[in-house]
């Protein structure tokens, strides 16, 4: 197995799929001649040429919509959003067109498209460049949503996403494109909708995804010193969600904390807690806790930014709260 960065893993997945299937193409701002704003598409223009790795104008709604139309006609577009913050301009195309086309057409028009890019906060990018969009998109039926920063998972899930006949949204993280890990060579497929136990434990279930998995791991290592055993569940796929892996963990630990980047009001974490309370009520020994961003736009100042994001302190406090410690 090779050690690859997240950006290399994504690059490998897209390149392998483009070699396999000539109907797959990549389009987005700076993906071709600039080699990608975050270099995820590095070298792909040289390999596949300008019809398959395409620099778009700065027109998010426009090229997302072009992707929808091309997908309806039989191509398989990968649309890169420089960040999901900008993709908010394309929400009409994502929500009103991509997600609903199959349904509105009574099953006639599929939209097999991947829209990918980083989301969430990076570092001192302020309010308009730090947003999590998962909670805005998960409640729209007709989409699949993947959120991961693990290089091996990213490769396997990206390959699944490109082969999927639905529109799949892929949420990455710009801070973690350079983070490396072991990635299986060649045909490595991770199915959409299957979560993973990132760390087994017995005292409390901590559900975390995307870059929050790293914080979860730090916290779990820290708490191990105090004799608290944390089980980390990374659902990897928000829609469809692997509910069973979460339920099974809660049935074992009897305690739940959800750690999510992004605002907590009507968030995806709310949905997880709702499902767990409904399905595992008798197994719970404490009310579930959630750790989220504070409910303010992201400030620029580094100290304030750090305070807005979920911290180890707040996560530890939440875990101790469900343990009554």
């Amino acid at each position: 197995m090779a050690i690859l960065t997240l950006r290399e893993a994504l690059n490998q997945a897209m390149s392998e799929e483009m070699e396999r299937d000539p109907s797959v193409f990549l389009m987005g701002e700076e993906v071709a001649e600039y080699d990608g704003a975050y270099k995820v598409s590095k070298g792909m223009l040289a390999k596949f040429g300008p019809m398959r790795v395409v620099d778009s104008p700065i027109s998010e709604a426009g090229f997302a919509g072009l992707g929808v139309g091309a997908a309806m006609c039989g191509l398989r577009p990968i649309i890169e959003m420089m960040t999901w913050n900008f993709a908010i301009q394309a929400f009409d195309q994502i929500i009103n067109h991509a997600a609903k086309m199959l349904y509105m057409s009574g099953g006639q028009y599929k939209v097999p498209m991947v829209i990918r890019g980083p989301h969430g906060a990076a570092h001192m990018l302020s309010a308009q460049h730090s947003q999590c969009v998962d909670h805005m998109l998960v409640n729209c039926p007709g989409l699949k949503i993947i959120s991961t920063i693990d290089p091996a998972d990213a490769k396997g899930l990206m390959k699944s996403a490109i082969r999927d006949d639905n529109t799949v949204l892929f949420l990455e993280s710009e801070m973690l494109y350079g983070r490396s890990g072991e990635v299986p060579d060649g045909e490595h497929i991770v199915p959409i909708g299957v979560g993973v136990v990132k760390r087994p434990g017995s005292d409390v279930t901590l559900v975390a995804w995307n870059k929050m998995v790293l914080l979860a791991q730090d916290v779990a290592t820290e708490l191990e010193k105090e004799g608290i055993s944390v089980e980390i569940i990374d659902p990897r796929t928000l829609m469809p969600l692997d509910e069973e892996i979460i339920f099974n963990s809660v049935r074992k630990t009897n305690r739940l904390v959800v750690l999510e980047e992004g605002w907590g009001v009507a968030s995806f974490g709310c949905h997880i807690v709702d499902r767990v309370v409904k399905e595992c009520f008798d197994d719970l020994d404490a009310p579930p806790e959630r750790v989220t961003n504070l409910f303010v736009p992201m400030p620029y100042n580094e100290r304030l930014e750090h305070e807005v994001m979920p911290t180890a302190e707040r996560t530890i406090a939440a875990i101790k709260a469900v343990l009554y410690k």
Partner: protein
Amino acid sequence: MTQKLSNQLLVAFYKEMLLGRRLEERIGQLYVQQKFSGFCHLYIGQEAVSTGCLNAIRKGQDYVITGYRDHVAPVVLGMDPGVMIAELLGKVTGCARGKGGSMHMFSEKHRFMGGHGIVGGQVPLAAGAGWKIKYNKEDLVSLCFLGDAASNQGQFHEALNMAAIWDLPCIFIIENNKYGMGTAISRTCSLSNLSDRAKAYNMRQAVVDGRNVVNTYNQMKEIVEETRKTSKPILVEIQTYRFRGHSVSDPGNYRTKEEVEKERSRDCLVLLKETMLAQKAAKEDDFEKFEEEIADKVDAAVAFAEDSPEPELDELYKHVLV
């Protein structure tokens, strides 16, 4: 442009436009009789546009997409009118199995990429069809209908820019019926010639009199062939008028009686009838026969739709995901 059409073609066009007209009149009645609900935007007055444009393309091969005033285009492309009306009535025999309704007619078989309810939202999709044609090096065009007011939308401009920089074989057709809902286009657009929007994208442009189906067809034929040959997009403004309100529930009080009467005097059906009589393509009593023939078709379509079953409840969760 003034090129004469064969008698046979004139008769075919007349019947097609008459079918559109009578279908829409019946749809208006069904709506008032509360046989169906939701929004219902009638196309009455604009029939020469769809007949002129859609007969100029290769039906079933070239791609077509439109906005929410979408009952007539799919029928001109070959959709069974009964299937269209069944969709209006929400029946499972409708083109979208009763899940699309008035604004979302679709027919993959006819390469009709749908009616779309978000003003201007369909324009980038048409660019996507153009991209697919170019990507696969096909000898096809992508035809996109939109209303005059949709040309104020950002997505329209983004799509035209992309079509222009990439030489996509797209024909963007503004059906200028002079009103975006109840607001005159002169109040919302600084241009008097909407096709001038093309200049911003170094794109070809054309203006077409959409009351005269012979002109519309001839002009569109040239435009389609040129686009097929060069893969250069074009913005076409087709001047037309909707005789009814924006939707069935709109009495259209923002327009004067005089204006509507004046516009009705240039009814595309009346103009074509005059041409046909002058060219001896048909005699006066032929038109009664056309009416009878079309009335039978409309009756059959409505009967099929009314006799069709509702979708079963298990239809609800079908087609959310593939």
